């Protein structure tokens, strides 16, 4: 992790924490996550952005107890899933990259199944959410569109009424309309009850109106962690030919339109787009790796 460029979120109670988190799938191979430190405070939607292989899914799977850290630890509501996975999972709702529904079961049967697996599952709330989106509840999910399946998966996660929702690129395969529907449902559901959400995504434009904070994960390391507001107002994009102070330059990269630009840190005066911030920090990560 580049300490100079990582800005930690500050605030109250920690919902999700990663401390010195390292995950190496095979000895001798590069780490998927390398000494990550993250504190995600209670409430709000945190966008987790990064290229393929950056470790987004690995991070989420560590919180779920699906992966055991090689070093360091994670906690969910103060509980280490490596030590007490059932208790940690009781505080998590999850939607994965694969929507993970039974093709032969209907939405109603999925809700019924969830009620047998999760104590206090909010079946009526889930039914209400599906009804609001006109999702057919009686037909096998194999007959539904990808967007409708994603809505069912989201309803299962929201029905847990867990304080934390971990969404691992659930919209990656959806068309723009279905993505918007999914994210709207998510936003409406979690705004009301202060759920903490991590939403991993490649599609930065989707996150603009929905996320409260942003984590830019470059391969194995956190490059930026702060509020969306801080990300945009704290950075500016200038032509690469402009003079910039060494301590404010984050990285130079090829922007949209093919021109070379620099992302610079200018707290309070910047007006960078979220795309620029993400590209800039990923370029910084590449430069760090290249120099190493």
């Amino acid at each position: 992790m580049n300490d100079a460029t990582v800005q930690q979120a500050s605030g109250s109670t920690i919902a999700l924490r990663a401390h010195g988190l390292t995950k190496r799938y095979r000895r001798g191979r590069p780490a998927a996550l390398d000494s990550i430190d993250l504190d995600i405070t209670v409430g709000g939607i945190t966008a987790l952005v990064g290229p393929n292989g950056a470790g987004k899914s690995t991070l989420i799977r560590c919180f779920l107890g699906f992966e055991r850290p090689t070093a360091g630890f994670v906690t969910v509501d103060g509980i280490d899933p490596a030590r007490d996975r059932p208790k940690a999972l009781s505080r998590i709702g999850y939607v994965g990259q694969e929507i993970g529904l039974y093709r032969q079961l209907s939405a109603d049967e999925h809700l019924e199944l969830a009620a047998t697996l999760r104590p206090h599952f909010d079946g009526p709330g889930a039914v209400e959410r599906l009804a609001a989106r006109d999702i057919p509840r009686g037909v096998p999910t194999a007959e539904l569109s990808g967007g409708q399946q994603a809505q069912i998966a989201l309803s299962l996660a929201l029905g847990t009424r867990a304080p934390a929702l971990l969404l691992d690129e659930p919209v990656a395969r959806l068309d723009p309309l279905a993505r918007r529907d999914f994210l709207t449902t998510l936003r409406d559901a979690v705004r009301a009850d202060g759920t903490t959400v991590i939403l991993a995504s490649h599609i930065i434009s989707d996150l603009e109106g929905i996320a409260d904070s942003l984590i830019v994960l470059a391969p194995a390391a956190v490059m930026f962690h702060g509020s969306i507001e801080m990300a945009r107002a704290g950075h500016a994009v200038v032509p690469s030919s402009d003079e910039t102070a060494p301590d404010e330059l984050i990285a130079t990269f090829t922007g949209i339109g093919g021109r070379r630009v620099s992302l610079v840190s200018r707290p309070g005066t910047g007006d960078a787009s979220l795309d620029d911030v993400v590209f800039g920090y990923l370029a910084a990560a590449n430069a760090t790796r290249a120099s190493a």
Partner: protein
Amino acid sequence: MIASQFRLAVRIQRFEVWSCVLLIAVVGITALIVRARLDGVGAPVECLTPWIFEDLVYDAARCDHLSAAFDRIKQDEAGLVMRAMLAVPLVVGLLLGVGLVGREIEGGTAATVWALAGSRRRWLLGRLIPILVILVALLVFAAITSELLAAGRVPWQFGRPAFDDAGLHGPGVIVRGLAAFGLALTVGAWSGRMLPTILVSALLALSLGIGGYLLLDKWVEGNAHEIAVPSWYNGWYDGGKFIGEFYRLPDGTEAGWDTDLGALAPIGVDPESWVASEINVIAVGVHSPDYPGWVATEIAAFGAFGVAWLVATFAIVERRRPF
């Protein structure tokens, strides 16, 4: 909640469940039909095994066609069903076991339900018990129908068990099916992929089937004892499985099967009557009264095998990634 779990577990594996129901129904009902056909021949035991009756005058005119008809059904139809019984419990166990965990992992549903359930042990129990109940019910039906057919093939045993179709009827069917189920379950949980699971499980189930015969041979060797053959008839039968036979001479020594017994008769004694009265034929092996011991052994062996695989599945599911 239990009703929900049961219904959903069946819904999730409905293809396998219905395939198994169909397979067991076809084989089981066929077994009952063949048994009825055997009984329907109306061949009395005196016609089928006249040698077990002393002083019986064989009525060839009455018996020949009846015993021929009985033998035809016994060998062809009943033989086919009993041979199928070797594969059926293994196939049913495999079909139900392969997808239970393996397909959940391959299909991506494991991540969803393991995140929902928290306790994977509880999830697995919820998925396992309904399928296990169905499997046991199907195997019990197969065991009963095959038992009836096996008994119908040896009416001269008058209800006593015989080693003729050992492992192909009764409790052996149930424990073999459960062992195959446990095996497929474990391989599925371990590999998380259907095709490798099907191939590896099928191979292992085949070994299980062969292993059953090897176990029987070993058990017979280990439990073989001397059984006095009560009659000189070649066709002597008591439902046994024999690994040797010899003559016991009046002084207690043994003589091989190719011994010229007449030459051993004391001088001045009619060799034929001496042999008939003084020489005992001894078979070495197991026979009908030993059958419960074999059943207990196969239940213990295959049961332990199945339980070990089930325990291994819980351990694998607890530790592995859901993808």
